[in-house]
């Protein structure tokens, strides 16, 4: 595994309930890249993401995150990987009985050795970075809107200043303006914190404006990868439908 590769997946297979969902795929992600994973519903995007994070068991193949194979990792190693990776779940997965600030503080309390004042300051700073005000910080997750939930989920994923950020559909269910803000946020954070971002998305606009590389998943395999412009060159019916449909064209033009 090359020095600047932070994620490396090779020949990964996942069988769930007798069905082969991921059918032997390999790719690498280099430090500082923003990689977007696209695919039809049911093509295995979320399964791939969850398998990479060790939330689902894989059938065969190798997943290395920062040079560590999670299934061979010692408790200390997997804790270290957990510290260096942030994950934003599709529904936010905020802890419902903690306030937004406490949600962001939670990983800090687990991993760092600072004081409450430090956690509070940095948590409020992270919330401000994703565009929340101090007045919002003491709300409970049930009291905020869907867009805010996504922002807070990103803030929590960023709590420990991770090296890799995994995002599961960061802009789904948001209006175009909020989605655009999230895109800008991801770009800014990537630049400022030098993150590597791996995101599952359906949003053609964020693919175009945020991602440095796109992986297209179809039927459990990667059928194409490259920049947005390259996607049009591949001759695959699903890819053509996806990127040259009306929405795809609109995104290309914009």
């Amino acid at each position, binding site marked *: 595994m090359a020095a600047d590769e932070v994620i490396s997946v090779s020949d990964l297979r996942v069988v769930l309930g007798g069905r082969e969902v991921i059918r032997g795929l390999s790719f690498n992600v280099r430090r500082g890249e923003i990689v977007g994973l696209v695919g039809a519903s049911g093509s295995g995007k979320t399964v791939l993401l969850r398998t990479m994070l060790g939330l689902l068991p894989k059938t065969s193949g190798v997943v290395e995150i920062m040079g560590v194979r999670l299934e061979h990792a010692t408790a200390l190693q997997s804790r270290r990987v957990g*510290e260096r990776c942030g994950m934003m779940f599709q529904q936010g997965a905020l802890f*419902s*009985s903690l306030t937004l600030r406490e949600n962001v503080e939670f990983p*800090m309390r687990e*991993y*760092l*050795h*600072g*004081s409450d004042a*430090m956690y509070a*300051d*940095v948590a*409020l*700073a*992270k919330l*401000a*970075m994703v565009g929340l*005000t*101090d007045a919002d910080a003491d709300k*409970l*997750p*049930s*009291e905020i809107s869907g867009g805010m939930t996504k922002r807070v989920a990103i803030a929590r994923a960023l709590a*420990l*200043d991770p090296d890799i950020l995994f995002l599961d559909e960061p802009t789904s269910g948001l209006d175009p303006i909020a989605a655009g803000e999230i895109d800008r946020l991801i770009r*800014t*954070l990537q*630049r*400022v*914190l*030098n993150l590597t971002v791996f995101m599952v998305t359906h949003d053609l606009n964020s693919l175009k404006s945020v991602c440095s590389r796109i992986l297209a998943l179809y039927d459990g395999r990667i059928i194409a990868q490259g920049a947005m412009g390259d996607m049009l060159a591949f001759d695959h019916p699903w890819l053509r439908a996806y990127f040259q449909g009306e929405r795809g064209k609109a995104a290309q033009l914009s």
Partner: protein
Amino acid sequence: MAVGPTLRSSSSPGGAVLSASGDWTGAHAADLERLSQAAFAPEGKLTIDIESVGRLDTFGVWALERLQRCATEAGVEARIAIPRDARADLFAGVEKALSRQRRQIARGDTLANWLEGIGLSTRAFAVDFAAFLDLVGRLTFCFWQGLRSPSRLRLRSAIHHLDRTGLRATPIIALMCFLIGCILAQQGFFHFQRFGATNYVVDLVTILVLREIGVLLVTIMVAGRSGSAYTAEIGSMKMREEIDALRTMGLDPIEYLILPRILALIVAAPLLTIIGNGAALYGAGVVAATYGDMSPAVYLERLHEAASHIDLEVGLIKAPVMAFVIGAVAALEGMKVQGSAESLGLGATASVVRSIFFVIVLDGIFAVLFAAVGM
């Protein structure tokens, strides 16, 4: 490879210089805190030089920023020399965010908080009571409409719940009542023996079981078993907006969710009480035969003399009323659940605690009532 953060002070013509080096990252949080409170000579200018800092993240920026702030508060004109590279972006992003929050968390004084707590819980009690009356009214109305057009009573759902709360509770309730019957009889024989009153043990057990113990045991078990389940079900439906979905379809959650459950409880409780009574008296009979030297025939004869249908009625009249209160409290606590997992847990706890409390209060009220009418 990981080097802890350090600060080195030196002086230059332009004033004091603090040179930061090492990794200023969250992994060294404790060191960062220590360094951010470094002492300064309170004079002149201070430059914080971060040129030789290795890795830097939000926590490092926080520490450097706090260092600068402390210096400024101490009367030193401090600034951070930010190199023109990616770190500048980090500073810009984090500093802007940090500068926005200079907020003290207000703490009221203890007495006021205490009084406020009392006031709030008093109001919450009044609100709860009003909500209870409101629910009773709605249930009555709903039931009345159901009597006029029986399809609205949702009997299929009620029977499903009757199976869950009644039939499936039978084994545990029978076992529990059997054991309590055994214990009552054993205690009776043990203590009455001393003054030769073992004949009255059967009277004691019969009256206690039929009038009080049977129905209390059953309703407490129902509150713990079904009341909590109702609260959890209704509460999680509330959390997942299923109840709102019903409302927007123009359907009444009381008719669909609450009334069938309460009807099931009202039917199940007297039936379970009969089973519980039987099991307890059977248990007492077993102890009488094995421990109290009373043959089953004698026990049955005494039982026949001691038990009156009034005792049985007293128990059975109480059961549906208590079941109604258990169901209503459970539904009410379920509807109060907010978005968080914690509020669901609080609701389930409150449901069980309150309904058992109300069952016992009701039992007392019934005792007075029955005494007044000579039952």
